[in-house]
C-alpha cells in the first residue's frame, strides 16, 4: 500500500499540462451546454451536462496519472450515463446503474486500485501511442456509423404505415431480460467478467517462491 504521493512530483503530473487539459474539458463542456440549450431548450442543457459528465469523466479517466484518480473519474462517467438513462425515461436502468456501478463495482474497483502502487512510466509516448491509435480508429468508426444512421432533424423516423410508438429505452432496459436476443450476450458478458476476475486474482497471486525469497 503506497500512498499516492510517493512518486516524484505532484500527484497529477505537470501542473501546466493539467491546467491545459482541464481547461479544454471545461471549454468542451461549455460548448456542449450551449449547443444543447440552443437545440432543445432545458432538456438539451440537461443532456449537455450529462454528456459532459460522461465524456469528460472518460477523458479524465484516461488522462489522469494516478490510478485512483482515474477510478474516481469513472464515477462521473457512470453518473452521466445514469443521467442519460433518466433523460430517456429509463428510470430503473438509471438507478440500477448508480446502485450497481457506482455503489458496488466502483467501490470494489477502488478497493483493488488503492492497493496498487502508481506506475510512473505510464504516460510515455511509446506506450500511449498504440492505445491511442486503436482508440482513435474506434472513435472514427463509431462516429461514421452514428453519422450515417442518426436523424438530426428531431422528427421521429417513421416508415409509412407505422404508428408513432417506437421501442423506447425503457423497454430496452426491461428487454435485457425479457427478449431472447439479449439474454445470450448478457450471460456471455457475465461469464467473461467472472473469468477476468479469476484471472486477475491468479495473476496477482503470490507464488511460493516469492515467500522463499523474502524469508531469506
Amino acid at each position: 500500500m503506497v500512498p499516492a504521493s510517493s512518486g516524484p512530483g505532484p500527484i497529477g503530473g505537470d501542473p501546466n499540462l493539467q491546467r491545459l487539459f482541464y481547461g479544454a474539458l471545461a471549454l468542451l463542456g461549455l460548448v456542449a451546454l450551449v449547443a444543447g440549450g440552443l437545440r432543445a431548450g432545458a432538456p438539451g442543457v440537461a443532456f449537455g451536462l450529462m454528456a459532459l459528465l460522461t465524456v469528460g469523466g472518460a477523458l479524465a479517466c484516461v488522462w489522469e496519472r494516478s490510478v485512483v484518480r482515474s477510478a474516481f473519474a469513472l464515477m462521473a462517467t457512470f453518473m452521466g450515463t445514469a443521467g442519460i438513462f433518466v433523460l430517456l425515461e429509463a428510470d430503473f436502468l438509471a438507478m440500477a446503474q448508480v446502485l450497481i456501478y457506482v455503489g458496488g463495482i466502483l467501490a470494489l474497483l477502488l478497493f483493488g486500485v488503492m492497493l496498487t502502487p502508481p506506475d510512473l512510466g505510464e504516460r510515455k509516448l511509446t506506450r500511449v501511442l498504440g492505445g491511442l491509435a486503436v482508440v482513435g480508429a474506434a472513435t472514427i468508426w463509431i462516429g461514421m456509423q452514428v453519422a450515417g444512421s442518426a436523424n438530426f432533424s428531431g422528427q421521429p423516423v417513421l416508415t409509412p404505415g407505422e404508428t408513432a410508438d417506437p421501442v423506447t429505452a425503457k423497454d430496452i432496459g426491461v428487454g435485457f431480460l425479457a427478449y431472447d436476443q439479449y439474454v445470450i450476450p448478457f450471460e456471455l458478458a457475465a461469464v467473461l467478467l467472472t473469468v477476468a476476475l479469476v484471472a486477475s486474482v491468479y495473476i496477482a497471486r503470490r507464488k511460493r517462491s516469492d515467500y522463499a525469497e523474502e524469508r531469506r
Partner: protein
Amino acid sequence: MAQTAPDSKQGASPSMSLDEARVLPSGEREFMLDVRTQDMELNMGPQHPATHGVMRILLRVDGEIVTGAQPHLGYLHRCAEKIGENVEWLQYLPYTDRYDYLSSMNNNLGYSMAVEALMTGLEIPRRAQMLRIICAELNRIGSHLIAYGTYGLDIGAFTPFFYAFREREWMMALFEKICGARLTYSYIRIGGVFNDAPPGWLGEVERFCDVFEQKWVEYYDLLMENHIFVKRTADVGVISREMALDFGLTGPMLRGSGVDWDLRRDMPYSLYGEIWKDGAFKIPVARGEKGSLGDCWDRTWVRVMEMMESIKIVRWCLAHIEPGPIIGDVPKVLRVPTGEAYVGIENPRGELGHYVVSDGGKVAIRVRVRGPSFVNVAVTEALMTGTLLSDAVAIVGSTDVVIGETDR
C-alpha cells in the same frame, strides 16, 4: 510461541505459514487470501486513543492483519528511582503516587512496607493496618473500574466507561474526605497512616459497598455478557499458562491465564493473612468460560470479579475496625537502619515490588521499583502478531497498562 521481531528494513516476516489455514482455538479455520501485498508500517502512538497514554507501538501490518508489533516505551520517563536516591525517605512518598497513578494507595503501601521492613521494632497499630487495607482495596476497585471502563472504550462501548467513572467518583470523594486528594493520595505513611478517618467516614464506605454491589451486576450484564464484547475478546490474545509464567506476568494477567497466584494469599502481608484465614475473600481465577483459557475476556473477567472480592475485604475490615492509634513510633527525622529489603505487594496490575537499600542515613542509597505494567506490556509484542488491527487494540487494552508505571 516463537516470535519474529519486526525488522523495519527487511520484507515481510510472516508470523504464520501463509499457505496453511490457521486453526482458531474455537475450531474454525481461517484462510488467508494468497494475494501479493506489501507490508505497511503503522505507528500506533505516542498519541493514539488506544495506547492509554503515551506509548508507541510500531505495527507492521498486511492490510488489517498485524504481522509484527513492537512497543516502544520511555515517553513518560521521570527518573522516579533516581529521585528516590536523592530525597529523604518520607519525601519519596509523593513520587510513589505517580508511577501507577490509578492505584496510588497501593503504591504508598508498597513503599511504606519496604521501608518498614528495614525498621526493626516498629510496630504498626492495628487501626492503621485496617485503614490501609480499606484504602488499598477501595483503590483497587477504582483502578479496576478504570480498567473495565477504558477497555469498554477500546472495544467501542462508551457508556460503561461513564458508569464506571460514576462509582469511581464516589470512591475518590471518599479519599478526598480522608486524605484531601483525589488522585495522588500520599496517605499511607511509613509507620501507619497520617490521618484518622473523619467521623462518619466508615459508615459512608459501608454505603458505598452496598450501592456498588448493586451496580456491579449492571457492569457485568452491560459489557461482560454482551455478545459483541464476548466475540471481540474471547479467543483473542490468548496467553497460555506457560507463556504467562515465562513472561513473568503477575496480577490479573496471570490469573487470567489460569494460574492461581495472589500475593495477598500466598505471601500474605499486613492483615491479609488473617482475612484470608477468616474466609472473607476468594481469588478469582479464569476458567476460559467464553473462549480459550487466557484470552482477553478472561483477563477482564478476573478484574471485574476482583472488584467484588475487594468489597468483601472492605466489609471485613469495617466489621473488625476498632479505635486506636493510627501511626507507630516514627521519629520526625527518619533514619532507617542499614540493610536492604524487597517487599512485593499485590497491586491492581500485579506485583509491585520495592527494593530499598539503606546505609543508615536519611536518604536511601538505592530504590528500585518492579512495576507490573512494565513487565506485563512486554507480552503484547508476542500476542499481536497474526491478529487483526482491532484485536491489537483489544490486546493492549486487556493488558491494562499505565504508562506512568512502565516508564516511571
